[in-house]
């Protein structure tokens, strides 16, 4: 049954439908309502939600919960995600299936989400939903893919997603069976000679010392496989487009709306949205911009996704930024770019070959 | 075959001993002393003198798990002055 639900609540509901039974978090706008939603809903299904005393402790608690084989999540906004970086990096190397809800203040955490601020070589699958409905599907997929690849998965949301109410119906999605989590700790192998050690450096019981290099290379091979298997995108009207507009997340909804309107007026403009920020759908972007004379990148920041667009296209056609820093008086990312007329003006400017001021 | 006045004995993994000497003062009857020998690591190791009581103190304080401790069920033959 469809009901009107704010994004935060819908995401929590979808996560619980996917089997999430542990959440820890620290309040910070615009993540706070997600924590509130989990705090309200988890006890009713026998789950645990802890108000941690810091973001560092939030991710630490999620780490412990994951180690027991539970489906567990945490999240924050950019500043809090910044505090979690060491743990995010090491959890990846410990191959724990964390789901991280990165509720950003706009789009200027793209680098943080995709490059990571933690040490070492590691990658997270990053989904950027366009609306609440897609967020409820991607949240469920996140728990499945995290378990399937034994790797963290991020959902990149924002203030608009968290606070927009949409009519949604949370239908539990069905997934293929997963192998049992026999790596999870429950104490049972104590004294057997085969006790477990969930660790991020390849330590093994009964063997002194570690060999980081083969361990890290194995992880890299897994990330390479993820990069091949997991890119996802949405595209419209790109086959004969002379200009392709590239946008992600909630801002892409405005880009899509404007592109559709311009198409109805006969303008040859196309729309491309990475659904996965990592792996960035480079192959699909190359294909979608095959006939374009120009590629316009619309994002609410000083220019972050544009790097990935340029890397994908490798100079094969001009890439211009038509977005820019855009925020409100509280810095939460609800800025002037979240406006169809503003976006349309910028897209038209790009179509006309004009410089578009940030 | 029991040593004179000993109520127990120990085995010492001298090849693993790191020569820390923590066992020497820990032994209540003071029957551990560093020998003049060296193991393959080039490190001196303890030897057991007569008078061990099998109390296990050495085992408790050895960081390298070098000791096993035994007690004799029958009293040892007493021929000299007990320690």
């Amino acid at each position, binding site marked *: 049954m469809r009901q009107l639900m704010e994004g935060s609540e819908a995401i929590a509901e979808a996560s619980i439908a996917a089997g999430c039974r542990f959440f820890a978090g620290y309040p910070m706008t615009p993540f706070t309502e997600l924590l509130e939603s989990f705090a309200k809903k988890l006890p009713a299904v026998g789950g645990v939600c802890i108000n941690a005393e810091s973001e560092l402790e939030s991710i*630490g608690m999620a780490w412990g919960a994951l180690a027991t084989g539970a489906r567990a999540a945490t999240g924050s906004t950019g500043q809090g995600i910044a505090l979690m970086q060491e743990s995010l990096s090491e959890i990846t190397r410990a191959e724990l299936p964390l789901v991280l809800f990165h509720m950003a203040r706009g789009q200027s955490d793209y680098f943080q989400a995709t490059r990571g601020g933690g040490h070492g070589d590691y990658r997270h699958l990053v989904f950027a939903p366009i609306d609440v409905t897609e967020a409820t599907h991607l949240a469920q997929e996140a728990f499945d893919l995290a378990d399937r690849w034994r790797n963290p998965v991020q959902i990149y949301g924002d203030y608009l997603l968290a606070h927009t109410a949409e009519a949604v119906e949370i239908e539990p999605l069905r997934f293929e069976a997963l192998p049992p989590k026999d790596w999870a700790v429950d104490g*049972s*192998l104590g004294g057997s000679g085969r006790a477990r050690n969930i660790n991020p450096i390849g330590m093994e019981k009964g063997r002194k010392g570690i060999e980081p290099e083969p361990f890290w290379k194995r992880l890299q091979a897994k990330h390479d496989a993820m990069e091949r298997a997991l890119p996802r995108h949405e595209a419209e009207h790109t086959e004969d487009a002379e200009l392709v507009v590239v946008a992600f997340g909630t801002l892409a909804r405005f880009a899509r709306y404007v592109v559709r309107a311009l198409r109805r007026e006969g303008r040859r403009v196309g729309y491309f949205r990475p659904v996965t920020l990592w792996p960035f759908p480079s192959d699909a972007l190359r294909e979608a911009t095959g006939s374009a004379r120009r590629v316009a990148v619309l994002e609410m920041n000083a220019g972050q996704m544009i790097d990935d667009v340029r890397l994908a296209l490798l100079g094969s056609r001009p890439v211009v930024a038509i977005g820019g820093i855009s925020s409100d008086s509280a810095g939460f990312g609800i800025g002037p770019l979240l406006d169809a007329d503003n976006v349309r003006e910028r897209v038209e400017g790009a179509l006309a070959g004009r410089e578009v001021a940030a | 075959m029991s040593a004179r006045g000993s109520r127990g004995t120990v085995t010492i993994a001298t090849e693993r001993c790191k020569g820390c000497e923590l066992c020497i003062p820990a032994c209540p009857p003071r029957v551990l002393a560093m020998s003049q020998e060296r193991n393959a690591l080039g490190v001196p190791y303890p030897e057991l003198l007569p008078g061990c009581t099998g109390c296990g103190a050495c085992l408790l304080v050895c*960081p390298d798990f070098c000791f096993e401790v035994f007690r004799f069920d029958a009293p040892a033959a007493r021929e000299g002055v007990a320690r």
Partner: protein
Amino acid sequence: MSTRHEGLPANARQVGLEKPALQYGVDHDLCPGCGEPLALRCLLETIEELGCAQRAIGVIGIGCYTALTPLMDIDLVQALHGRAPSVATGVKRMRPEGLVVALQGDGDMVSEGLQEVLHTAARGEPLTCVLLNNGVFGETGGHMTATTVLGQRTKNSLDGRDAAYHGHPILIADLLAQLDGTAYAARASVHDAAGVARTKRMLRRALEVQLEGRGFSFVEILTMCPTGWFLPTAQGPEYLDRVLGSVHVVGELKREGRFVPTAQLAQGARAS
């Protein structure tokens, strides 16, 4: 059967095993005279004696003792420096029937992770935190931590810790014992056989508190670090007792609701 057992008389009965049953092997590269393996022995023996080998889940911090984890035949989760209490919280909340023990050094728990252990105790999480306190960051080469005592020489307090320049040590057992969520807090020491025996008794009480669901339990174990203390190994135990033990005084600080501060322990009071 060990070749060392040749020549043993027939009436010799083994009373002391080479290693605890829950320990894989005996080979480790920690320094000669290090107290941490003694603490490990106490912990593994106590877990086994409580019949909890298949319930125990260890959460390990980062320090010299991390290298002992290949020897531990219980399920483990490796945490980051300072972060074991929060990881242990996640483990215990999702596996409440587990016997969850966090193991950290003083640099880990009291320097990097002070906030984590305090909050975990305040929340009364029914798990056990074990502190290996030698007053130095051993693994990085012997530097000052939040528990280093005044006058103690370390790599970055070569003239001895000076209150005016370096501030004062933190007596973490007191901080934890005062919190209502803490059901048991004690300090032990492995500088001699009696100390090792007392360490086991305190660990047992702490783990029993967890098994009975009575709240957070804490055991601090003073351990020798002759390398970090610039001492010959044989002088480690005396230094531990005299220098660290006079500040981080051995005894029970919290038991059955009653808090006995370190100052009182120093005057010889007992918690019960």
